């Protein structure tokens, strides 16, 4: 067992080396050994997948002393592809070793002693398929938007897989989420939350087990988001108002903090009598919201479902009263907002 754990610990090093300049000293036998290790790890994955305790132990060992994105048991299963593609893209690999790599990775197994992964030709084909099928009609949204939408959705699904894998090893989402590149992770999280909510809505009559698997990652992700005010602030600042309102509609625990954030941002605005506009204070930090944006975000609430609309209105009214219940413009940002919202004062 200890040998096994020691072996598994080598995975991180192997992957790191495959991406580094250290491969310049590799000759074909070394490369073969590396690929063999990859296949061995995959074999381990297959063997221990159905044994939760062993899996947890292996996963734990993988994460020991790790910097950067944490590894998981799933890495063992994907090792051949991870290794192969990393080596392929590594320009430091000398020609002889590279030659061997190409033969092992891509050629049909008939003349090889040990077959390489054959899923790579499928990868090339699917990539071409994505290129062919993605461009939308001119009537629709801009092509980049559609591509972005599909990309985010796919990344969200992969993130979900990873979170579910980690959950099986009793790892919370924080480990993975902390190390994902910002700000992209926020976009992906939003996509994930949307997709989860959509799935759940359709699964009302689903079995209890299915129902359970749905909300759990979403709830975990949300609590991670809400757990840190700075994080939440960046999340809400980055994403468009319409998206946040859509999310708040499905996840009430998001709606209230978001409203609070909006109000705190709004209260930093000062009226400039010379230009007749609300502007941010003289030393703007990254959290500063412009008047236009504040107005836009609140109007998203107005266009949202009734409970959110009511909550936003109530909030604005309260704040207006706190500020002195003025009816005239220019004195309280909340009065002005209410006027803009065309709501009864």
């Amino acid at each position: 067992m200890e040998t096994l754990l020691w072996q598994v610990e080598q995975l991180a090093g192997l992957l790191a080396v495959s991406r580094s300049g250290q491969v310049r000293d590799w000759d074909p036998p070394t490369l073969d050994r590396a690929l063999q290790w990859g296949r061995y790890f995959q074999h381990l994955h297959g063997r221990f997948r159905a044994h939760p305790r062993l899996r947890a132990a292996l996963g734990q060992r993988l994460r020991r002393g790790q910097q950067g994105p944490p590894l998981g048991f799933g890495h063992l299963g994907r090792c051949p592809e991870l290794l192969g593609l990393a080596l392929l893209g590594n320009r430091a690999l000398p020609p002889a070793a590279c030659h061997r790599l190409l033969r092992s990775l891509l050629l049909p197994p008939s003349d090889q002693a040990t077959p390489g992964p054959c899923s790579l030709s499928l990868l090339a084909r699917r990539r071409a398929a994505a290129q062919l099928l993605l461009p939308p009609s001119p009537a629709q949204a801009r092509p980049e938007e559609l591509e972005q939408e599909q990309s985010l959705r796919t990344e969200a699904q992969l993130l979900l897989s990873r979170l579910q894998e980690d959950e099986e090893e009793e790892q919370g989402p924080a480990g993975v989420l902390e190390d994902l590149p910002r700000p992209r992770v926020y976009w992906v999280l939003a996509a994930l939350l949307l997709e989860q909510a959509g799935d759940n809505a359709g699964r009302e009559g689903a079995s209890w087990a299915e129902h359970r698997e749905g909300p759990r990652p979403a709830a975990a992700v949300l609590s991670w988001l809400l757990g840190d005010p700075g994080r939440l602030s960046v999340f809400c600042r980055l994403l468009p108002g319409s998206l946040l309102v859509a999310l708040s509609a499905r996840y009430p625990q998001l709606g209230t903090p978001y409203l609070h954030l909006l109000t705190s941002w709004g209260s930093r605005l000062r009226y400039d009598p010379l230009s007749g506009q609300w502007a941010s204070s003289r030393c703007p930090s990254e959290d500063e919201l412009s008047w236009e944006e504040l107005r836009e975000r609140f109007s998203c609430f107005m266009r949202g479902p009734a409970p959110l609309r009511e909550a936003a209105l109530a909030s604005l009214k309260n704040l207006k009263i706190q500020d002195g219940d003025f009816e005239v413009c220019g004195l309280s940002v909340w009065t002005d907002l209410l006027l803009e919202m065309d709501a009864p004062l």
Partner: protein
Amino acid sequence: MAQHTAVPKLSFQYWLDKAVEWGQTTTLESQQDVCLQLPKLQEFLQQIYESLKHMNSTTALQRFPLIGQLLGRLCWNPFVVGYDESQKTLMWCLCYLYSNEPQNPVELKANSWILSLLCHLLSSSEWGANKVGTGTFISALGYTSADYYSKLVKNIVLSLVTELKGNQFNGLNVQGRVSDDRVNVVSLFCVPLITLPDVTPLLEALLTYHGGGSQEVLSSEFLEAVNETFLKKKIALSESAILSLWLRHLPSLEKATLHLFARLISTQTSSLEEVACIIKESLLPQAACHPPIFRIVDEIFKNALMETGGTPEVMTIIQVFTQCFIQAHQKDNKQHKFPLKAYFPHQQQHLVIALLKHPFDLPATLWSQHLKYITDMLKAIIEDKSIRSYTDLFESWFLFVHFGEWADIAVEQLLKSEDESSDTLLWLLAFYYNPHSDKEQRTQILVEARAVYDRLMMLFSCTTLSITDLQAAASTKTDKRQPCTKHLVRHLLISFLLFSSGGHKIAQEFISHVILASNTTNEVFGLLIRTAYRFNQLGIKNERIVKLVNELLQELRFMD
């Protein structure tokens, strides 16, 4: 092996020019051209690969100096990369061109170029430099581009399917309206991807898509390609999708029917159950429940029959197909089902209804009567001078051929039952084997047939017979006999062997000495498998006779 290395230089230049052309223009015409050329290109790439396998990279570059240009351009064409196995061949070629000991800067550069091309195909390292950071994100999660693209394609397909289906239900929803042009383009772009399993839901959605207009909105390249792939069994589609395809694209239906026909003729089947199986697999009987499709398939069979001069094999195929069709029709539980007689609109309805009754729908005692009924109607049609034209005659005969099991029953009845309907039955058989209108000819055939029949009936109750007895009974005074009469006589003879006790004993001997000596094995084999099939359908378990049939079949097979 030497042939493999002979990749003609002309082809190389041709494909390079094509690749340049495709890369330069992105018009619909050039895209259609790519789609049409994909199979041939794949073959060409295979040839190149076979040549490269036996060379090292230096030799390869000398032999095919332009190969770098060609592969480079093709790798950037998603139609080529997405097609069938082309991407594999392209990558293999690149592997073989990679030099493991580059001797000079040129080779080093070539190596580097090969690697970047492969990385491009597999979305490797350059991916991290993706403008939106997808690559970095996926890597941080611990996944590869393989995982990413696998899910991405599924998502795209799902969204396209939703788009297509949504259009059908919210016809009034202007926002969701998909334009015909878009559907056309999507269908064209699917042509390389037909054998990719992820794309099957999209293929189904396209095939069952009905736009507002009356013009065909799917590209013909798409429809043809789907049909070809289906016929080669490289893809499995739902029945409704295939039906939709055949209903909207006539050439596909014709190809499918001819393909089935060719397959049935060329495959060595050992039983009609096997034939029925092949026919059902083709989905044509099910599709034929749509009267327009039935008419077209029937027409094709009719032509085949005429072209082959009415050979028994073709007649059997038509008979089995009709039975499969009727089964499919009865299983089909749509509300607006057409009655069976509607599929034969130009025939006398009484005749159609009579023929539609399968022998197992009637008790055996009523068979003779039913046959007489059919014969009377046919006679009336044939001999009615007012409506008689060659076409009408042929049509009536063709109709009868669909239900050829009744001819087999007729022969059986002739030998087994004692009543005086032998004239009627012989007339029916003469008609079955020779529909030609000449009254004199028919009379002659009847006379001969009657002579043989009478002689056979005299031998029927004999318990011991010899081969010579039978041969004498079957022979003719004159050596000239019409082929159709020969068919009839043979049918009588073989049935005699099966149904008479004397015939039983010498059946095997007869087969091995007489039949195998002549060149009628196929015909006799056909008769026997028809008999076996009929026994199976009617549930005849008479062990002795079933056993005999199987033994005779064995013998014929063994000799073949």
